[in-house]
């Protein structure tokens, strides 16, 4: 992609020669792939619900599958967003629902039991990936409550807080008294004024 964007840059602008280490971790990429997978699966569930129920021997549950499709797409958008942790958590909850629903297809009179078993195995595998991605995201983004540093010494005022209070205003008022001007603080404080 940078090859194309390099061509649009002006002559003196820096252009990428070689790419270095990225802020995007392998877990971020996993989460992103799971998000796109979720949206893809959701679309299939919405538009091909009858074929899915047919393959799994679950006739009559088409609306269930469509509702699951909407859920998948919502989770997918959340997982692709900055708040991927919420998206991944919703995916895990969805995985549990999928497993519970597929378990009902494992009854002995279902001729498509093998398909349902394969689907269960797939869902279990994806659940594992969801858990791995969620674990990594949670560990990284957890703010360590109660373990943070205190910056209580950092006033930023070398002459102390009390001396700083109103210092700029006092200087302005002194200037005003000397100059006898009535111009606003904005212009005096700002040098050039607005």
């Amino acid at each position, binding site marked *: *992609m*940078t090859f194309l*964007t390099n061509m*649009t*840059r*002006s*002559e*003196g*602008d*820096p*252009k*990428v*020669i*070689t*790419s*270095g*280490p*990225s*802020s*995007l971790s392998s877990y*971020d990429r996993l989460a992103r792939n799971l998000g796109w997978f979720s949206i893809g699966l959701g679309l299939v569930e919405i538009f091909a619900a009858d074929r899915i129920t047919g393959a799994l021997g679950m006739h009559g549950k088409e609306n269930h599958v469509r509702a699951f499709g909407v859920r998948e797409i919502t989770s997918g*958008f*959340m997982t692709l*967003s*900055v*708040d991927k942790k919420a998206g991944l958590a919703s995916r895990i909850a969805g995985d549990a629902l999928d497993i519970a629903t597929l378990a009902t297809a494992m009854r002995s009179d279902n001729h498509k039991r093998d398909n349902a078993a394969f689907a269960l195995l797939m869902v279990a595998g994806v659940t594992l990936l969801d858990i791995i991605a969620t674990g990594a995201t949670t560990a*990284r*983004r957890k*703010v*360590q*409550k109660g373990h*943070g*540093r*205190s*910056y*209580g*010494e*950092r*006033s*930023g*005022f*070398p*002459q102390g*807080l009390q001396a*700083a*209070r*109103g*210092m*700029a*205003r*006092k200087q302005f008022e002194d200037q005003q008294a000397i100059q006898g001007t009535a111009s*606003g*603080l*904005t212009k005096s*404080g*700002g*040098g*050039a*004024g*607005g």
Partner: protein
Amino acid sequence: MRALVWHGKEDIRCDTVSDPEIEHPRDAIIKVTSCAICGSDLHLFHNFIPAMMPGDVMGHEMMGEVIETGSQMNGRLKKGDRIVVPFTINCGECDQCKRSNFSVCERTNRNKDMADKAFGHATAGLFGYTHLTGGYPGGQAEYLRVPFADETHIKVPDSLTDEQVLFLGDIFPTGWQAAVQCDIEPTDTVAVWGCGPVGQMTIRSAVLLGGKQVVAIDCIPERLSMAEAGGAITINFQKESVIEQLNELTAGKGPEKCIDAVGLESHVSMGQPDTLLDRAKQMVMLENDRPHVLREMIYVCRPGGIISIPGVYSGLVDKIPMGQAMNKGLTFRMGQTHVRRWTDDLLRRIEEGQIDPSFVITHTVGLEEGPEMYKVFRDKQDSCIKVVLKP
């Protein structure tokens, strides 16, 4: 040279890129000695600001030494000068620059046509930001080309360290402008939402400008501790009601001056249901920004008060209570910072020891650690408030 380069959402890389070159007689090249990661860089990191392109060099808070100049410096800049670079590029000659409205300079945005369509009228060129503001390469790099360099610079004396003056390029004048445009009176309560780097500078500015009390609102204990050190009364919005506390501190009348140092990515929590709705809309691109702070400020501000907005917003926001704002007669002041308008005065204040902006620095690392530090800063890990990079 090495530079931190934007490749997509949450994807910043430390790349090898070609060195910048002089393009125009008013250009100069600096060797960057210090640069910083700004809160608004996180909006780019999260891809909330439109019109970024893979390969864009990040960074708009930087300083260094001039190593090459174009032929039209008019004696104002020469090799060897030590300068801080304002993040707003200004020509110094257009109608807006003559009025010191440097962030809306009429000549420095090289993508003016695109910006005219997006904003109605183009604003100034900015370093390391969207192509709507010119797409100029930023300063999280070893070298930087400074366009209109004869105007776009702040010379700094050798007696001050990089850390003391670096923030003249953005967060210090941004916090100062936010406070100044509130017209603070000695009887005023000034409430500041957000205790990130801009919020911290805003708090110090409001203290220097003599507000009766400055109230800082955040939920991160480290940031609140720094705000308290700077003279603020603090409110942790996860532990107490902002509206109740502000009313209590103002005898039920509300603060006269409210400052939004948060911007488009306000905190999302179950306790503030509007933030959940905003986040959901943002995810499906029905809304650009999360304006919870704006809503809260409009609600709690004293009638006749001033709302000042240094926090960055990118586009469309929903459910802004204009009825409350109109009936209460509130005044809104906002905008990217007119950096050069303030910097002579602020540099003098640093030299006189009124303020030392280096208090806000919590992490100093090499450029190659930049990609990781974006995540550390975003996730507020290791008590991170402000990251300085040394290329």
